[in-house]
């Protein structure tokens, strides 16, 4: 099994006719994803890989009544298109789009909470369950990364995802579901909010978090473990340990600020609840072997 998306999950692609949108729609379908329809204003009547295109999400949903599909937002076809999916009753939304204004993203996250929906992203590659389905854009054909298995992976970083996942696979494991929660300062869904899904998934044996300095999401994961919300083995990779304080290196989320948000604080919080925190990607694989061996001998 997999979390968030299965082969049966019906997918709507916002921005399906764009260059990136159609390219990755093709790959999602190749991989077995059940893409039902797409949306691009002004392109209703066209089709992409045989999937009908509609002007708006509302029209697409109305035409595909049997259950509202989750919805992958490719490039931001309109300002606020996250609201379009939410207001159309879609409960699982992946926001590939980057560059979403901060205040808009706060509004989208607030609206999703009210609606009981999950908005993943923005600025993410999406999520993939190797061998099952993909809601996003991953080079699933690179077998030394996207191998089916039992490790759930959550990541804040696009560029580290392949790097760390390759180490997981190299250590003899595979991936149940890889979830990119996005690199913007306010992701629609936070690490800790995904943990219950991994906890409930019988095929996920352990979870790896690819964190980052800044923010408090790793600390929240530690709190969730402490609260018993997540009980499976947990490993993490946290980079940025030698970054000079106050130097801004990339993402806004990487600004070191206040007492929380430091790598040291995150490592301490995670280790205090039994997580194995790696300082090199290669150690993630080693830690997983230890954690799962221990888990098995109990």
């Amino acid at each position, binding site marked *: 099994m997999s979390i968030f998306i299965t082969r049966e999950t019906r997918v709507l692609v916002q921005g399906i006719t764009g260059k*990136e949108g159609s390219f990755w729609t093709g790959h999602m379908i190749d991989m077995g994803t059940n893409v039902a329809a797409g949306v691009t204003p002004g392109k209703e009547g066209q089709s992409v890989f045989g999937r009908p295109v509609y002007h708006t999400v509302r029209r697409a949903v109305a035409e595909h009544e049997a259950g509202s599909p989750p919805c992958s937002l490719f490039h931001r076809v309109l300002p606020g298109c996250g609201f379009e999916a939410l207001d159309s009753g879609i409960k699982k939304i992946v926001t590939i789009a*980057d*560059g*979403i*204004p*901060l*205040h808009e993203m*706060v*509004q989208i*996250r*607030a609206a999703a*909470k009210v609606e009981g929906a999950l908005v993943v992203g923005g600025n993410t*590659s999406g999520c993939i369950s190797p061998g099952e389905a993909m809601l996003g*854009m*991953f*080079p699933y054909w*690179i077998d030394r990364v996207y191998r089916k298995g039992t490790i759930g992976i959550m990541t*804040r*970083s*696009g*560029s*580290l995802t*392949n*790097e760390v996942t*390759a180490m997981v696979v190299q250590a003899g494991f595979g991936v149940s579901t890889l979830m990119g929660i996005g*690199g*913007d*300062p*306010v*992701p629609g869904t*936070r690490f800790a909010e995904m943990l219950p899904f991994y906890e409930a998934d019988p095929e996920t044996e352990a979870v790896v978090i*690819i964190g*980052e*300095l800044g*923010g*408090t999401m790793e600390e*929240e994961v530690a709190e969730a473990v402490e609260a018993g919300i997540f009980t499976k083995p947990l490993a993490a990779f946290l*980079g*940025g*340990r*030698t*970054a000079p304080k*106050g*130097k*801004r*290196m*990339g*993402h*806004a989320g*990487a600004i070191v600020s*206040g*007492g929380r948000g430091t790598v040291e604080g995150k490592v301490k919080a995670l280790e205090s609840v039994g997580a194995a925190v790696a*300082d*090199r*990607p*290669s150690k993630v694989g080693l830690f997983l072997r230890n954690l799962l061996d221990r888990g098995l001998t109990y």
Partner: protein
Amino acid sequence: MKLFEYQAKAIFQKEGIPIPSGYLAAPFEAAGFCEQIGFPCVLKSQVLQGGRGKAGLIQVVKNSAEAGTRIAELEARGVKTILVEQAVPIARELYLSVTVDPLRASALIIASGEGGVEIEDLAETAPEKIIREEVDITAGLQTYQAVDIAYRMTDNPDEARQAAKIIQALFKVFSKYDAELAEINPLFVTESGELLAGDGKLVIDENSMGRQPGFERTRDHYDSDMEYEAAQEGIPYLQFDGEISLMCAGAGLTTTVFDLIHYEGGTVANYLEFGGPNYRKAVQAMELCLRNDSKVILIVTFGTIARADVMAEGIVDAIQRLRPNRPIVACIRGTNEEEAKKILEAAGIEPLYDTEEAVRKAVALCGQGSAISGADDPDGRDGGEV
């Protein structure tokens, strides 16, 4: 994008937040403005770094002679713009800011009736004195919330009335300018009972710059010419003084490589992100690296949309055009990595697959001096010239 104090204060004033009177001056003009304002007055260096007071970049001067000395000192430290302000007689210092709470998905007003510049200490020693008020970012700040915060900051109705207006105005600045942070620290209460913004910090969300016209990053926003030039190309770049030039893809991976170099005992000459939208900018990126006094260029990528073969082609092209005078270590993986391997091998570059191995190799090469063809300029200073 972080604004300078004078920019933030100009916006504050426009939206109705009182600020001390002052003039923006080049160092050579500053002494004249001091005379105009009268003594004592304050010289505030317009630089983006924090902790200016402790760093001596803010100076209260009591007379012309002292002003002249301090202005010369600041100019010698590279300060190009000084805000010359009246020295207001201060009774107390308050704290006020508006930011975003990513977890609760709301705006967050943080305020205090004490603290001022010592707010971080106060937050640790007396957290109950820190006022936190969540604000629905869609509905905006309600008047009653501003009034409630104001009366938690001060019991004096006259001060509270002023504070409520300033809170509303600061929230308006936060909303109107798509701010990550709008902060007044300290918020002065003068001896005559007026509230004034003693400092102004305004950080505008990078993703909103498209709908926030009128803000441009100038040379003053960067620590070095190189960082400024890289930014003009859209390339994230940070200057260090070590031996290995990084040319990596993505913030997370670049930061990790940065760590790994230090773990292996190496040092970094520059941080450079060559990925995402920049993955076709190999020539510009390598040119920046070559202008460093580095011993090795280390390229690490593991791309999806940023295809490995395109990156490899770019690197080969850059090597042919720039003829780098130092060794290049390349670890290029991801979409079409088989293709990339062939391209690199054809150009005589060994394709590596393991990041830690690549880092170890780069660190080892630093010990050996340069060892690549075309290294006709051992000190590397001219390496970046095309």
